[in-house]
């Protein structure tokens, strides 16, 4: 586990949160009413995978709270905590993905996606609806449908965009000694 917490992690949280907040308004419509894919989730997953669980959790939590407040004037705490949890869980295996070392291969991709699916399942199918029931006493059916929507949307965007980001960034760190010019 990567539990190092130095200057780089502090800055990663700061700049990462800024990214997350700035990307709040980028929502890709899915065709299902009021359900959007959130690229910011993929960015958070990427940061968690590079910098570890603390950065992941704080960026998810702080980014969601600040983003909600600044763009929508309201904070839905029942969705803020799950977001932090997703970052935390994905970040737990940061050392195994070895993204900066150029090690994000097939095995790491599978691990990353298993982690993100499990994390999103716990967050959106379990935690978020439970918090919503406790906090807002809204109808269970509605919350489960909302939760399922968020779960699907997030595994999709993290699975595609998140994986691409990790793989792309990993390639930058990789050695390129095997390249040769072609005529």
């Amino acid at each position: 586990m990567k539990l190092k917490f130095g200057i780089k992690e502090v800055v990663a949280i700061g700049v990462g949160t800024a990214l997350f907040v700035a990307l709040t308004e980028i929502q890709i419509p899915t065709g299902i009413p009021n359900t959007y894919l959130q690229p910011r989730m993929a960015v958070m997953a990427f940061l968690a995978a590079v910098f570890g669980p603390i950065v992941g959790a704080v960026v998810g939590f702080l980014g969601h709270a600040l983003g909600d407040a600044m763009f929508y004037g309201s904070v839905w705490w029942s969705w803020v905590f799950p977001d932090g949890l997703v970052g935390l869980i994905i970040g737990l295996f940061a050392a195994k993905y070895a993204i900066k070392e150029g090690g994000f291969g097939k095995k790491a991709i599978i691990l990353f996606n298993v982690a993100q699916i499990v994390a999103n399942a716990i967050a959106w199918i379990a935690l978020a609806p439970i918090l919503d029931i406790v906090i807002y006493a809204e109808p269970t059916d509605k919350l489960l449908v909302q939760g399922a929507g968020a779960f699907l949307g997030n595994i999709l965007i993290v699975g595609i965009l998140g994986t691409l980001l990790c793989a792309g960034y990993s390639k930058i760190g990789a050695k390129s000694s095997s390249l040769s010019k072609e005529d």
Partner: protein
Amino acid sequence: MEPMIEFKDFSFKYRAQKEPTLRDINLKIMPGEKVLIVGPSGSGKSTLAHCVNGLVPFSYSGDITGTLRIGGKNPADLGLFGLSKIVGTVLQDTDGQFIGLTVAEDIAFALENDNVPQEDMFVKVDEIAELVDVKKLLENAPRELSGGQKQRVSMAGVMVDDVDILLFDEPLANLDPATGKRAIDLIDQIQKKKKTTILIIEHRLEDALYRDVDRIIVVGEGRIVADTTPDQLLVTDVLKEQGIREPLYITAIKHAGCQIHAEDKPMHMETMKMDRYRDKVRDWFDRTEGKAARPEAPSALKVEDLYFSYVEGRPILQHIHFDIKKGEMVSIVGKNGAGKSTLSNLICGFYKPTRGTIFLNGKDVAPLSIKERGEKIGLVMQSPNQMISKPMIFDEVALGLTVRGVPEEEIKERVYRTLKICGLYPFRNWPVSALSFGQKKRVSIASILVMDPEVMILDEPTAGQDYRHYTEIMEFLKEINETLGITIIMITHDMHLMLEYTDRAIVIADGHLIADDTPAKVLTNETIADKAYLKKTSLYDLALGCGIDNPSEFAERFIAYEREKKKETALAEEKTDG
């Protein structure tokens, strides 16, 4: 006296690299000295600076041999924090260095980290802010400041620590010429007032020499190739050999066939003794030809009575009008924030003008969408990192065609053709990450070129590039311009670029068009240069100093002569290659 900085048989190799970046460095810098360090990209000059401020080896690890003493102490014993009390570094990226939410907080940053009580901080911050002239800005956020102001805040931020050494990493890279001049002047004042040891790393030698320096150290391929006074250095050919641009007046005097003598004090044009050179330079002027006039061509991009404002009553651009002809290479210049980027945003259709019309080939572009305009007017951003979004070179260049649904066969053919033009064909199957910065820049140009645009707009195409890369990129653009007939517009504040490579300069100051003329005329006109935060070229002073009463024609002929010479060398190189 004990030296402030002393390298002895010093070598350094980064962990990830096979070869050492610095070899056998022997260098002594005395307290209160002001030293300029020059060298091309990759020469090791930044690594040398990192050794002084401690980023090497504390942040970038590697193997060190030999010894280094800073203020008489071993950096290894001081640690990064100990060093930060002795050495203050002003980074090139003033946005990255500006950490605080406001000017005052950023200046106080080092004090905060040192647990200085709040009341003491207030006093100290005020005092330093006064020194670098940002007192009125203390409560401002970074986005409200100009590049020059941010840089002064960065200086203040390291000076609060009462450091003995101030290290400037390419202080001129992001500034317009007039602001750069002011920065060099401020550094000079600080050194005189505080007797600080100053190290300036810069490849814009002529601009850095605006104020006296004691010594210039030339770094090449990891070694010190010269360590001497400016006057001595300018006499030799070391700069040329290392790919560093000499001051223009020096090059001009050399073209005239003169041997420069150190005792004439060639460091500054204004104070150089000219007796020995005057006649020869005048002769050279008389026998050299200027540039042939360009034949009249049809209009490519015409702007008529253009106005733009975000908020009513606060115009960003007013009454802008110009007509750029097909095949021209034009520069749009002016100080930071004068409205240059707004102009390119209007041309590309990102913003809608408040009033006025933009014509492409005589047709109003207003009905065209951003995408449709993008097919005819290509925009290349300042940093290739802001454009490149595909890991593989081929895919990156193909992107614009792919999203337009061009058939695959055609994409392949067009991408290959473009890659050949850009000299990237041998790398077509490489990941972008394996390329150098200059090659990446070419990829971003190729990705626009592939769409066969008629006009290409480039934002600061050579920012942060050393002379060799600058020449490489600009020669490449010139070639595209000549062989493909693409009209090229460059937004820049690089005076060399406008002078050497463009036929025309459109000058914008405070939202108004104040000149539309040849660069040589613009850069020899004091009023315009002042208003646009440009600097008169030293060729102007040289011409006057030699009794030539048409300085802009002198500049014109100098540039034409340089071009001729460049072509000859290029031809000669081709012959030896073949």
